[in-house]
């Protein structure tokens, strides 16, 4: 860089107007050149990725295609939410794995959120013991790696349960099922003929609740009158179906497990692998959620609390009506991350034989079929889709929660 020491020159230039910049300094040209270059590199990258894969596949005389998904898998899995046997196809394996992933992810997200919110609020409690306990909960959980937690629960905690042949629950004759090292063999609900009516009523109740609550909200905006929405919703979602359930003659029975040579059989087995994974995933994630909730609440100016107290709101409604709605805006984006993490972390299940997507599809099926490229592509696409769906939903929810200026 040269320093212009000649004052006259500078004045000269000012009179001539801005000097014509060299073409490679022109920001427009520059940026389009960079764009073109980058796109070129990208295209080259993608092309070489594909041709490299193709060359390697053909060097090993392997083909590429998804036809193998129709072939019989030949192996069994320990938990399946749909009909599955060794004769089922690899595509069915995919579905079984995906459903098992979703099962643990969704139940995990619900549990982690409930626990996380409670702990997060407890950390802000004015009760010293409660807030200290919550503090230690968070610190202990998030400072130990998740895989270790999974092992602790699976090989540690669950191992304290009695053996399969002498399970807990014998004193109740299996009315609540049996709990042992082999998991919880629960009574299996069997639907009666008329159960669908109750199911329909629940569905109706949910839809009706939405309508009622949005109507009540509008009315409150307009007239300031409150409506006992909560009770009406409870009535719609629980009361109505319950009444129908009784009227149709309790169309639900249970199939109870029995103790056989190798422990409890029949009923509905809840695998110990599932229990350990679910517990580890949800408490681990709950520690992070607790911190997010705490930060969200702390982000709300203390004046808000004081103002609502001054308006005569009690602490409960203050939290529910003033603090939480505002805090949620801060909480939701990082919360989404935790949900995504939990879903992806569920793939650590390989270590303890819970048959989720990575374990049985990207693991066993890949190994038995030898279709690495195809299976990994499908698995990646699946996780991507799950993540995108979750964030889309959370973004939608976040937008709804955003402050609407009136």
């Amino acid at each position, binding site marked *: 860089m040269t320093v212009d020491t000649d004052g006259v020159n500078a004045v000269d230039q000012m009179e001539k107007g801005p000097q014509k910049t060299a073409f490679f300094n022109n920001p427009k040209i520059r940026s389009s050149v960079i764009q073109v270059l980058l796109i070129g590199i990208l295209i080259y990258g993608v092309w070489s990725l594909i041709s490299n894969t193709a060359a390697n596949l053909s060097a090993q005389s392997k083909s590429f295609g998804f036809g193998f998904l129709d072939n019989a898998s030949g192996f069994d899995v320990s938990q399946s939410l749909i009909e599955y046997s060794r004769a089922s196809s690899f595509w069915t394996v995919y579905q079984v794995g995906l459903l098992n992933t979703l099962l643990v992810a969704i139940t995990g997200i619900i549990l982690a959120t409930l626990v996380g919110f409670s702990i997060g609020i407890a950390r802000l409690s004015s009760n010293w013991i409660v807030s200290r306990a919550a503090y230690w909960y968070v610190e202990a959980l998030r400072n130990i790696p998740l895989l270790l937690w999974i092992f602790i629960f699976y090989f540690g905690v669950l*191992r304290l349960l009695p053996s399969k042949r002498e399970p807990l629950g014998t004193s109740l004759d299996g009315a609540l099922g049996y709990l042992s090292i082999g998991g919880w063999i629960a009574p299996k609900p069997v639907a009666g003929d008329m159960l669908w009516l109750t199911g329909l009523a629940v569905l109706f109740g949910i839809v009706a609740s939405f309508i009622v609550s949005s109507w009540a909200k509008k009315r409150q905006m307009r007239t300031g009158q409150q409506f006992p929405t909560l009770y009406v919703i409870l009535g719609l979602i629980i009361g109505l179906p319950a009444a129908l359930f009784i009227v149709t003659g309790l169309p639900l029975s249970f199939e109870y497990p029995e103790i056989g040579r190798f422990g409890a059989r029949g009923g509905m087995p809840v695998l110990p692998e599932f229990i350990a994974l679910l517990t580890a995933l949800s408490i681990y994630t709950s520690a992070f959620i607790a911190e997010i909730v705490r930060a969200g609440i702390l982000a709300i100016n203390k004046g808000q609390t004081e103002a609502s107290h001054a308006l005569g709101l009690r602490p409960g409604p203050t939290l529910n009506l003033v603090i939480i709605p505002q805090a949620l805006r801060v909480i939701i984006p990082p919360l989404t991350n935790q949900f995504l993490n939990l879903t992806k972390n569920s793939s650590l299940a390989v270590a303890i034989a819970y048959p989720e997507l990575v374990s049985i599809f990207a693991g066993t099926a890949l190994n038995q079929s*030898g279709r690495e490229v195809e299976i990994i592509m499908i698995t990646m696409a699946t996780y991507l889709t799950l993540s995108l769906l979750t964030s889309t939903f959370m973004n939608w929810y976040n937008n709804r929660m955003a402050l609407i200026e009136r």
Partner: protein
Amino acid sequence: MKAKLLSAAFGAALSVTAVNASAATLDDVKSKGFIQCGVSQGLPGFSQPDSSGNWSGLDVDVCRAVAAAVFGDAGKVKYTPLSAKERFTALSSGEIDILSRNTTWTATRDTQLGLNFAGVNYYDGQGFMVRKELGVSSALELSGASVCTQTGTTTEINATDYFTVNKMEYELVAFEKNDEVVAAYDSGRCEVLTSDASQLYSLRLKLTDPNVHVVLPEIISKEPLGPVVRQGDDQWFNIVRWSFSAMVNAEELGVTSENVDEMKKSENPGIKRLLGVEGNFGEGLGIPNEWAYNIVKHVGNYGESFDKHVGPETSLGIARGVNALWSKGGVMYAPPIR
């Protein structure tokens, strides 16, 4: 946007530089100076590291034999411990040169995974182990049991077949790592542990109290275990196949690591050819002519290797059985070096 483009392009470019599984494995191996050998994560008798990280075992000896043949030094091997699930990917991606990890030769693996089996170094079959206290004496009494096994194995498939064919209900609990299988069985999660029979004996040694378990009499499958190489490199395939065959031929001809130097003076044309005194079989393989001499000298013949690692004198105490030479009532048979 630019940042995204850039990182995508970069990622792609990186993957381009990833190794291209080369066809000329011998050249690769020679230029790096050692053989990368895929083994188990610790299976006594077959492939297991000692406390200072030196691997030994029947499967390890195959890799050492190849190293002796190529370099004249059985020590020029590096080991990659692999789970059952990882092993084929490791081989086809070029991470390892030979897979010698109690791997069963099956049609699927041979024809659909781009692999070739270079021989059989142990004839095995699948068995079951249970606790004595269950009072089970036959695998046919196992209906309703939970069965622990390792994922990505033929074991998993055989167990599925066996229980289905015999119309028995069961629960298959498949772990990725062998240690987890053993821990789960040991703690009572499963009543049954199933694996290749040879391994049941070595796995039993890992249990808290080996004496409270029994191996059931049924053998439910054929498990010819052998070394595997990538398809499409015939030279390397030949080297591995003949390195192992040399060990079997040496046993048949009575050549051992101890007498191999004397045997060089033998008048027996078979021995002369084996030890490179006559003929030039090394040339055809692209390796030194003393290749088989080096194998026997530094690794030993098949019988020696068997006795040392899994035989009756070891803690596994496996009898030669079907793995005896064909001339001694077994099925171990190698094509002649001629």
